[in-house]
Each structure stands twice: as structure tokens, then as C-alpha cells.
């Protein structure tokens, strides 16, 4: 399967292990990620002002490049890993699909590139996995992570807002897709109530106190459900949760990793986890033999 891939900035700088583990897993699963040429910043947070379409432009420029590349390889599916990129691209794409006047405005403004015809489909990698099928995924697992209790953390951007319709990748209140992934790689999902609560988002920049307060609650909730590790789909959530861990005693911390790292580990390919983390997990599943 060949799909277009929009990486976003964090995967190239702050968290290369997110992208690298994904590439490793995809190779094993027969998914070929074709990076969009000359992609640019998505905008990170979607503008909620309906009277200002300028903030959509970044996303649209990447769409146009994706559209042209898509024609070459014959696909209109764009996969993202970072949940913030997903949220912005999905929203902007849906707005352009629904509102012809906005589309015209944007296309008129971008006169140095071909017009964008809103036929791309923006898909998060989790949904791509769901479409591949968790049952099929299960068959490819080399190291089933039996005995590992994993807290699936969704954050906001994959589940909210619910307008335009179609943004959430799952039920906004009771999502199950990460749980299904966790089960398919042999681990046990922890039902922790704070899985959809906000980590504090961009407040890390000017008001880190807010983020500390939020992440302590999230980590505490995962801990009280005896989670060995928190699985995150979002670079900013990961950063904030790790920041939260740093303010806690070692005994109160719960390590945070990307879902693709655990997937890669179970598929028997390079997980790009720290050696310490990887050993810790393997020890937990009684798999010293793998070490």
C-alpha cells in the first residue's frame, strides 16, 4: 500500500523516534509512506475565526504539493502521525470541501501554485492501522507484549472538536482505537479516566504551571490504574507529560512513549526506544530472552 505522508516539524526535530519507529513498523506491514515534497508548517492549532481564512494557507500549500505528488503515485490519502497536524489538516480540508467560497478565496490567493481540488483524504496513522485491521496486525506480531499494562492517552486533537463533522478519529467520549491496538500487540490496556483530558497544550510556553497541574493528574490517573507506560500519539502531549514526570518523584512517574514505538517493538523491528526503556518493557513481559 502506498500513501502520502505528512510528517510535520516535531518528527524531524524534537521526536525523530516517532517517525523512525513508524517507518520501521510500516516496512514490516507493507505500507509505503511517500513523504510529501516541500511540505510546510500546518499551523499547529486551527484558527477558529470564521472570518479569517489566511491561517489556512499553510495547510493548503502542503495540500497542493500532496495533490500533485498523489497524481504521480495514484493516491489521494494523506497520513499524518502528529495528532496536532492531523487536527489542523483534517479541519482545513473539511472546511474547503464544505465551503466553496473559502476554497475559491484560498485558491485565488495562492496564484503561484495549481488550484487545490479538495479531493484529498486526511487520515491519522491510527485509522490507517484500523483499516489494515487489528486482526491482521496481530498475525504479524513477533513479540507479544503479554503482561504489560499500557495507558492509552488520546489527548484532545484526535477526538475534538466534532465540527466540522468528521474530525474525531473515534468516539470523542469513549475512544477505543488505541486500546484495540494495545490488545492486538498482546498488551493490556488500562482503562484510565483521564485518557481524553487536555495536557495543557501551548501553555507550556508561558504558563508551565498549568501544564504541570494537568499532567500530574493525567499521570496520577494512569498510575492508579497500574499502567507501566503511557502511550501517546502527540508530540506536544508527550513533551508536556514528560515535563510533568520531571516534577514528580521517580516512584510516581509513568514513562511516556509513542504508540508506534511499542508497535515496532512488538513487530520485532527497531523501536527507537531508549535501551533502558526497552529493557524495562522486555523485563516486564518476562522476555529477557529477547534482550
Amino acid at each position: 500500500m502506498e500513501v502520502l505522508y505528512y510528517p510535520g516539524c516535531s518528527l524531524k526535530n524534537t521526536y525523530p523516534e516517532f517517525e523512525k519507529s513508524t517507518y520501521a513498523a510500516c516496512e514490516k506491514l507493507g505500507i509505503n509512506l511517500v513523504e510529501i515534497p516541500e511540505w510546510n508548517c500546518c499551523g499547529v492549532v486551527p484558527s477558529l475565526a470564521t472570518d479569517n481564512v489566511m491561517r489556512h494557507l499553510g495547510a493548503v500549500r502542503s495540500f497542493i504539493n500532496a495533490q500533485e505528488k498523489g497524481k504521480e503515485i495514484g493516491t489521494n490519502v494523506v497520513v499524518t502521525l502528529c495528532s496536532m497536524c492531523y487536527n489542523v489538516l483534517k479541519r482545513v480540508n473539511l472546511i474547503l470541501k464544505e465551503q466553496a467560497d473559502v476554497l475559491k478565496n484560498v485558491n485565488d490567493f495562492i496564484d503561484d501554485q495549481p488550484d487545490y481540488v479538495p479531493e484529498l483524504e486526511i487520515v491519522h496513522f491510527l485509522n490507517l492501522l484500523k483499516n489494515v485491521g487489528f486482526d491482521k496486525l496481530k498475525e504479524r506480531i513477533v513479540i507479544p507484549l503479554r503482561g504489560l499494562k499500557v495507558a492509552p492517552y488520546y489527548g484532545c486533537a484526535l477526538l475534538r472538536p466534532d465540527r466540522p463533522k468528521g474530525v474525531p478519529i473515534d468516539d470523542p467520549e469513549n475512544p477505543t482505537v488505541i486500546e484495540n491496538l494495545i490488545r492486538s500487540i498482546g498488551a493490556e490496556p488500562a482503562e484510565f479516566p483521564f485518557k481524553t483530558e487536555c495536557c495543557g497544550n501551548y501553555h507550556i510556553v508561558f504558563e508551565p504551571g498549568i501544564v504541570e497541574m494537568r499532567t500530574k493528574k493525567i499521570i496520577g490517573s494512569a498510575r492508579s490504574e497500574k499502567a507501566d507506560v503511557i502511550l501517546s500519539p502527540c508530540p506536544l502531549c508527550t513533551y508536556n507529560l514528560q515535563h510533568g514526570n520531571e516534577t514528580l518523584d521517580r516512584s510516581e512517574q509513568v514513562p511516556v512513549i509513542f504508540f508506534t514505538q511499542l508497535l515496532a517493538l512488538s513487530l520485532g523491528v527497531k523501536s527507537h526506544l531508549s535501551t533502558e526503556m526497552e529493557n524495562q518493557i522486555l523485563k516486564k513481559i518476562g522476555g529477557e530472552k529477547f534482550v
Partner: protein
Amino acid sequence: MSALTAHRERPTKEKIGVFVCHCGRNIATTVDTKRVVEEILKHPAVVHAEDYDYVCSSPGQELIEKAIKEKRLTGFIVAACSPSLHETTFREVAERTGLNPYKCEIANIREQDSWVHEDKEKATEKAIKLTKSAVEKVIRNEELEPIKVGLYKKALVIGGGIAGIRAALDIADAGFPVVLVEKGSTIGGHMAKLAETFPTLDCASCILTPLMSAVAHHSNIRLLTLSEIMDVEGYLGNFHVRIKKNPRYVDPEKCNLCNDCVDICPVTVSSEFDEGLSLRKAIYIPFPQAVPSSYLIDLDACLGMNPITCGKCAEPDICGPEAVNFDDQTEIIEEDIGVIVVATGYELYNPENIGEYGADKYLDVITSLQFERLLSPSGPAVGIPKRPSDEKIPKRIAFIHCVGSRDERHQPYCSHICCTYSAKHALLFKELVPDADIYSFYIDIRAVGKNYEDFIRRVQEEAGVHYIRGKVSRIYEQDGKVKIFGVDTLLNKRIEIEVDMAVLALSMVPAHGIEDLASKMRIQIDGSGFLQELHPKLHPVESATSGIFLAGAAQSPKDIQDTVAQASAAASKALGILTQEKISHIPTVATVDTDLCSGCRLCISVCPYGAIKLIDEKAEVKEVLCEGCGACVSTCPSDAISLRNHTDEQVSSMLKALVGEI
């Protein structure tokens, strides 16, 4: 008073009299009635005209009678107040004097003339035009008789909850046979599940079970449980109904309620009657007072009567009377029915749709009906509510109002009863567990009903409930506690509290399958999915289809008081029809000129009553179904359909009169 008689040659054989009313000064101040009389006499069809102070009075009516007799009038006009006031009065005068009532028309020169205009001359001109227009109409009116049809003197009541029970008993007590159809295995509906009822705190069973028993023993009531309506054909007085009666597998006539079959049955499933809070067997009785008083077999749960797998309950040493019958079959029952009462009730909204409250995940987040069962002395907790997770008596309970109500994502309407029953829950619980802490989260307290406000006050004063104005955003369980994210919008404080159990006052939604039933009966569904009444104020129990009445929560969320009141109202409407020998139907219906009809079917598609059928490629109006709206008339591209006494010709000549061309 003046009476003038015209002596001119007339082209029409109609002889019309015109009576212009002064209405005291109401008309006469603004309209020159004398001039109206003078002018109208110039109309070729008018042979008599006069004016009088009060035409509606006895002497006024006598004037009309006298003129009809003396001048051999073929019709007459009263130029007076609106037809909605005295049209019936004057048509009765016509009938008394030997004229067809449809040979009387009213010219409205009060409400639409003298009362709204000041210029006397112009108002008089207008009065003349309006009167002439009425003359033009009446000379073209057909003499019509009300359409009379016979009827079946039997009622069908659909739904065996308190609404259906009340309606069936009222009709049966008046001496008419009733077929009561209930989908479930027993009548009683939701009320049978309740502990006590607000605001009087009557025990629900104590007031309901005698009525259920009365239904069971009433010689005029044929009770069909486990039954559904398959189809309804016909019209007011002459419905033909087919009912599917599903097998019970236990003969109620033979069953003696010994319970031996239940003891031996190896299968347990969760009990619908206890809202999933207890278990029952595959052969069971929903509750001891069920009517019909008999066990039944849930064939989906039953292992079957194959002796290898089971079939124990059917063995003669278990069921002595041989009541268990695995060969029981589905029956199709046909009934001829005169009137129908629809009382299909409600359901609670599915809490799984409200993800943020987690009722599907957390055992101690329960529905209001589950709490009723926990409070009920006959319920699974034997009267002292215990929380489902660990069977401990909860000390802190939160009641959440408006769950799924007044919410665009779920039901936009107010469910009407939740404020009061949540208060009742709090009061009853406090009586059982005096040291309990009770939190009640509300948006507004809507206790609208007789004595309801007193009841709320009593709960606030006696039960010491913490009423918190603010909606709850989220409920979850952690560390064995139910946690609630709420807000107090009066203190403007966000609150997070821990409780032992949360009770959701879920919104009421129409019973499952209502749309299907409504379309079978050609009754309307409103925007919220409930059955639509003909008019919310003037016809609150009638459906748009004559002869079909609505009762209870099928029409809108309501409490027991209102349900019973509406059920009795529906029964009285039904009796109003059943007591007649013949049914009258308005004769001003549509009629087809088959020579002109091309069989295009457009009329069939626009008729809201299904009154038109195609017979031999020609439209035919079933007169008793036609309500005379004229939608077919204006649609017919061949001018083949006309409306009696509102023909194109009449409209055309009235228009001419209105602009002074006549």
C-alpha cells in the same frame, strides 16, 4: 326596519333572501344597512331583502322563516357577524323551514368590515360587495346532506401501560367491547416498576394492580399480550386491524403459578422488569402481579425442549397442569374496529449515547428507572438501595437532572417529569438512609403540576438535599469512587465531588417502533418523534386521522396524572363516536368528473388522507375519508376534480362580485 321586494325579471330560478343585521350599533354605525338592502335587491337572484337589529335573535330568526315561507325562498344570506359565530344558528333556521342548510351563507360585515373600518361610505360599499359575493356563492351551492356511515361498536387500545389500561377500562365500563393489545408479556407498563409516585407518595403497585386485575376480569375487554399491530385499514368507524399474537409457550388458562418450572429451569438471564439489576430464568413471570397471571418462556434464552438439551419444565412431574406447550404458534387475529386509542408510551433514552457519563462502563452509574427498582420494596435490593458494584448501601448519591433532555445533541425538549421524580428519589432515599448526603444537579427546577412545588419544598426542607444549580459535565470511576465534574453556577464555583452512586434522570423518548406504527395508521410524528396531536390546544387527544386518538407519553413526555387524564379524555372522545348509530361526515368533499380524469395520479400523491384511489384508471374519492381541503382540486391538471360548494365557478363569480362587476 324595512322590507323591500324586487319585481324584476330574473335569469335564474333561484330566489334568494338577504337579511342584513345591525348587530345593535356594531354594524349599523359604520355600515348603511338600508343602502345594502337597496343595492342587493338589484341583484337578479335576490327576491327579498331586509335589515333588522339582531337577526340572530328569536324575532330575527322568525323574520327569516316568514320570508322563506312567503317568498318561497330557495336560499338566503345573513349579512352579519363572522360565520364562525352564527353560521350553525342560521343553517338550523334553514333546516327548520325546509331548506337545505347549505342554501344558507353568511356575509361577514362585522369582523371584516364594520369593526375594522371607519369611513362609512367605503364600509357600506364593502358590505354590498361581500353580500353580493355570498349571493353568488349560495345560488351555486348544491343541496348537500351529511354523509352517513355505519360503524363497528368496538374499540382498539394499543399499549397496556397505565394510559392504555385507563382508556380500555373507561370504554369497557361504558358497555363497549375493547381489544387491548400489548407488545410485552404483561400489562402495567413502566408504572408497574415504580416504587412510589409523586407528589402524594402513593405506592405505585397499590394503585395500579387493582386496575390491571380489573382489565383481566372485565367481560368487555379482550386482552392480547405479546401482540403487535400488523396493519390497519379503513377509516373512522370502519377500521380493519390485523394483529400478530406471538406464542407464550405457557397456557395462561392452565398455569397455576406453582413456580416448579422456574425452580428447575437451568438458564438465568438478566431481568427486564428489574432493569437488568437481577436475574430471571428462561421460563418466568415478570413480576408476581403480572396480567395475564401466567409464566411464559423466553425462547431466545431457553435451551429448547429437546430432551437431550433440556425440556425439563414441560415434564409432567414438573408442570402438573400441562400448561407448558412448546408447540404454541404465532396467531394472526383480525378485528373490525370503530375507534382506536394509541397509548404506546415511552422509553428511557439509551445512556450509552451519553459517553461522558459512562453509564455503560461503570456499574454505579445507574438510570432513574434502575433506582426506582432499587427503591421498590419488591425490587432486587428489597427496598433499601444497594449499589450494584458491591451491594453496599451508598451514603453519598448524586442525582443528575436533564440527562439527554434540553440538549441539542440528544433531545432538545424538556422531559417534564425528571425534576419531580428526582426529588422523590431523594426523599425516599433519605427516609431509608437518614445519614445520606444527597446532591442534586439541576439546570432549572421545573415542577409544574398540582402540588408539585409544595413537594419540592418539602424535599428541600425535610430531606436536606444539596441542590446544586449547574450541569454535570463528566462522571467517571476511579479508586472505587464515582467522581463528578460539576459546577455551581450560583456560587460560580467548579466542583469535583466523590459519591458512591450516581443516578441519571434520563430523558423520555417515544417507544421503539412508533414510527412504523404511526405510518401504518397514517398518523403524524412530531419533530421529536412523538405522536402528533391534531391541535395542541383545541384537539389535544385527536390524531389527524379521524377516529384515532392519542393517550399518554406516546404523545409527549408526561407524568401519571396527565397520562390518566388524557387517557380518559381519549376514551370519552372514543365513546362519543361509539355511542352514535351512524357517523356523520362533512359533505363538502371532493368529487371527480371521470370523463375528464386522465388517471395521472397527481391527486393521489397530494391527498393527506389517502382518500383517493384509482379505479379503472380513474380517480375515485372515498368520501368518508375526504376532509375537504381541496389539495387535489388545485392539483388536478385536467380540472377533473372539484370541491362541493367551493367550485372554480363559485370562486370566479364571487371574485366578480367582490370587485363590483356584478
